[in-house]
């Protein structure tokens, strides 16, 4: 699906993206580029928008001396984190950005340090300065600040949440992430496609198939590789198993947000059974190391495939019973309903993806919109709810988990025997680039990949669904009660590692 890159003037970039989105397109990502490694002499910024007729890729060249362009965030709010990231990592300045604070590299990093530029070696460690974090605060009579994290009482990933509250009601939430930014995108530059895979798929522990799959698809497009049929079907199987254990675990986590113990343990136990099935099937509980460019790194275990149907029937019945017991609990549903509202207009403006979008009435699902692997031959039924609250996100997850079970059964029926991997067909030209998207458990995860010389990576950007959805969380919280935040947060259940990279 190689879509051509359209070159465009920096001033025209924002209006063009806004126009495409007004015509029904969806913002995919911005990627900042250093063109010097592929024969250029400056930097560039590329906007990717998903339209009805495929991806629109708009690239604006920027001079090295003053790499700036008028911000698009005021027209396209979904781009506002992308713009801040390109500014931190490449020094590309969006002029007039509504929130020019640091995002990825916090304030202690020296100004002018732009690690993704090609002249910065990967092992450079600049001296860190003092930490001058300026949170967004609301002032006024009776308004108080509540700083939470980045170290939490529970074992969860690091994030700092600054609440401005009046009594128990939240006026504003400022979320500060990227405490575990590991520079993965810099780390893969110059590596061969095969050697980069372990890094890309470990961007996050619970979205490994999603990331490996997006990466493999981008590499296969670049190398014009066609993968064997068995691998196409097996990829659907793996992607749905990943969705299933995530959704089952997240349904349980939502119950933890209201302290509803019976469902927490019941769903936690189901999730554990699913992880054990993953292990039986692939040798890894979190499905790491199975998807590879060209197909699969190894065939699925016949023993694992043999026990799958009966185990899934059992899990399906148990899941249905658990979900029923939650819906029947008045105490739980009272907490879920009306909490953490995100309206359809807000969801669309902020670029919500996945469960977050589909619970707010947006029909977005890459499995249907831009089919990959064997999804084109399957009839994926996409669940949409219109409530926009925690309850809607609960129902979307519950139904998607059952749909995942159905799809897995269908794959088991349809998957042909045969080879599971094809060699990469060609070495891509230096500077050739591809964009691939996968509908992960939290929504569409997009990967932008440009080839360097001899089958290496020149630039990779991973924009996970969590990255897209964090600003939606921050928008869902104001007006709710402080103790409802954990519940709202868990109803999105976003990854920090996927976001921070």
């Amino acid at each position, binding site marked *: 699906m190689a879509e051509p890159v359209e070159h465009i003037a920096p001033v025209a970039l924002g209006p063009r993206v806004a126009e495409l989105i007004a015509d029904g397109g969806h913002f995919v990502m911005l990627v900042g580029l250093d063109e010097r490694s592929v024969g250029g002499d400056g930097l560039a910024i590329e906007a990717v928008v998903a339209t009805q007729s495929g991806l629109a890729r708009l690239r604006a060249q920027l001079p090295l001396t003053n790499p700036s362009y008028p911000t698009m965030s005021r027209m396209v709010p979904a781009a506002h984190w992308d713009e801040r990231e390109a500014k931190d990592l490449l020094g590309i300045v969006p002029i007039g950005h509504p929130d020019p604070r640091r995002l990825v590299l916090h304030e202690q990093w020296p100004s002018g340090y732009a690690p993704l530029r090609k002249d910065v070696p990967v092992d450079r460690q600049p001296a860190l300065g003092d930490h001058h974090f300026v949170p967004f605060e609301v002032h006024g009579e009776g308004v*108080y*600040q509540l700083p939470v994290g980045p170290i939490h*009482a529970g074992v969860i990933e690091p994030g700092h949440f600054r609440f401005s509250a009046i009594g*128990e009601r939240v006026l504003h939430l400022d979320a500060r992430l990227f405490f575990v930014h590991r520079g993965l995108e810099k780390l893969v530059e110059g590596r061969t496609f095969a050697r980069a895979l372990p890094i890309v798929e470990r961007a996050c522990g619970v979205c490994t198939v999603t990331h490996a799959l997006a990466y493999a698809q981008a590499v296969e497009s670049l190398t014009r590789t066609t993968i064997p049929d068995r691998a196409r079907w097996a990829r659907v199987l793996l992607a749905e198993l990943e969705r299933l254990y995530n959704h089952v675990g997240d349904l349980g986590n939502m119950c933890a947000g209201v*302290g509803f*113990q019976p469902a927490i343990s019941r769903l936690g136990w189901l999730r554990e059974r699913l992880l054990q099935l993953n292990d039986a099937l692939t040798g890894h509980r979190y499905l790491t190391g199975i998807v590879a460019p060209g197909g699969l790194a190894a065939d699925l275990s016949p023993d694992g495939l043999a026990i799958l149907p009966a185990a899934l029937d059992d899990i399906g019945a148990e899941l249905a019973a658990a979900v029923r017991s939650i819906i029947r609990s008045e*105490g739980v549903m009272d907490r879920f309903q009306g909490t953490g509202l995100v309206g359809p207009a807000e969801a669309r403006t902020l670029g919500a993806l996945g469960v977050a979008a589909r619970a707010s009435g947006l029909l977005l699902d890459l499995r249907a919109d831009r089919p990959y692997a064997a999804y084109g031959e399957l009839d994926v039924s996409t669940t949409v709810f219109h409530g926009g609250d925690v309850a809607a996100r609960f129902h979307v997850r519950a139904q998607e988990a059952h749909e995942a079970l159905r799809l897995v059964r269908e794959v088991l029926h349809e998957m042909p025997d045969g080879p599971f991997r094809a060699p990469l067909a060609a070495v891509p030209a230096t500077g050739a680039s591809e964009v691939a998207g996968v509908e992960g458990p939290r929504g569409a995860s997009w990967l932008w990949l440009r080839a360097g010389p001899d089958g290496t990576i020149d630039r990779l950007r991973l924009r996970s669904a969590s990255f897209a959805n964090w600003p939606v969380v921050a928008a869902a919280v104001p007006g709710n009660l*402080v103790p409802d935040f*954990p519940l709202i947060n868990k109803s999105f259940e976003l990854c920090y590692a996927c976001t921070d990279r």
Partner: protein
Amino acid sequence: MAGSLVLGALQVAGTLLLAPLLFGVTKRVKARLQYRRGPSLLQPYRDLAKWWRKESVESDAASPLTAAAPAIVLASVVVATFLVPMVGIVPPLDGWGDLLVVIGLLALGRFVLALSALDAGSAFGGMGSSREVAIATLVEPALLLALAGAALAARSTDLGTIAGVGQAAGLSWYTPALLLSAAAFAIVAVAETGHEPVENPDTHLELTMIHEGMLLEASGPRLAILMYAAELKLVLVAGLFGAAFLPVGLARTASPVEILVALGATLAKVAGAAVALGILDATLAKMRILALPGLLTTASLLGAVGLAVRLWLPS
């Protein structure tokens, strides 16, 4: 006199030694209802020992109150516990105070704990304090109304007398009015001891904490003392319920048979409370915090109706 000394000593030793065990029972019940094995019943003792050996970390903002608070909180609960008859019909500190003093001591402990949580100057302590105090304004009237029902029935606010009258009355003690008061007390007891649906005692979610929020800044021996006080408070609340609303089995003399019956009855009552709280924890979701006033007002209403029935509908 020697007899009441023996009974008093039994209550003192029993409550002080067994309080952590009740926490263990609640946790065990909760674990079993979740198909988990759960920690050992002795785990609360080990936790206390662990905290006792650790160092106390103190906020730079803390005043001497932080150091004094655990002692005051514990002392208020200990004294209150000895004002409630749990083994003998006469409490260990007979004549030192009636149920109003017990309620006052509970309020004193809460007040000092809330102050000490503010003392550290962190946001969570302040949040816990403000929630605790907001809830206390609804808990205390309900507690008073509920216990007033029993006091009115016995024509005395002295807990020993209430238990004595109740035990002597036999089944005729359990009038509809008293059952209403008992129901009010049961609701208040859940809030007072920090269990679901009011609070999740095992949560790690800082933003949802009430009582736990006030303990976040405590560490080492101070945390051990405050946790022990919370464990003892569960015994106190259960004992208070037993004395006022279920006065059976309390010993009038120190004869071995009566002592055995009294110990068995009290253990059953207190363990029953621990099991009930475990079941609540394991089966209910936490209420929205702004819905709590509704629940606690219900308790007050039950208590008030109990009193009204007693006053205007003589049996």
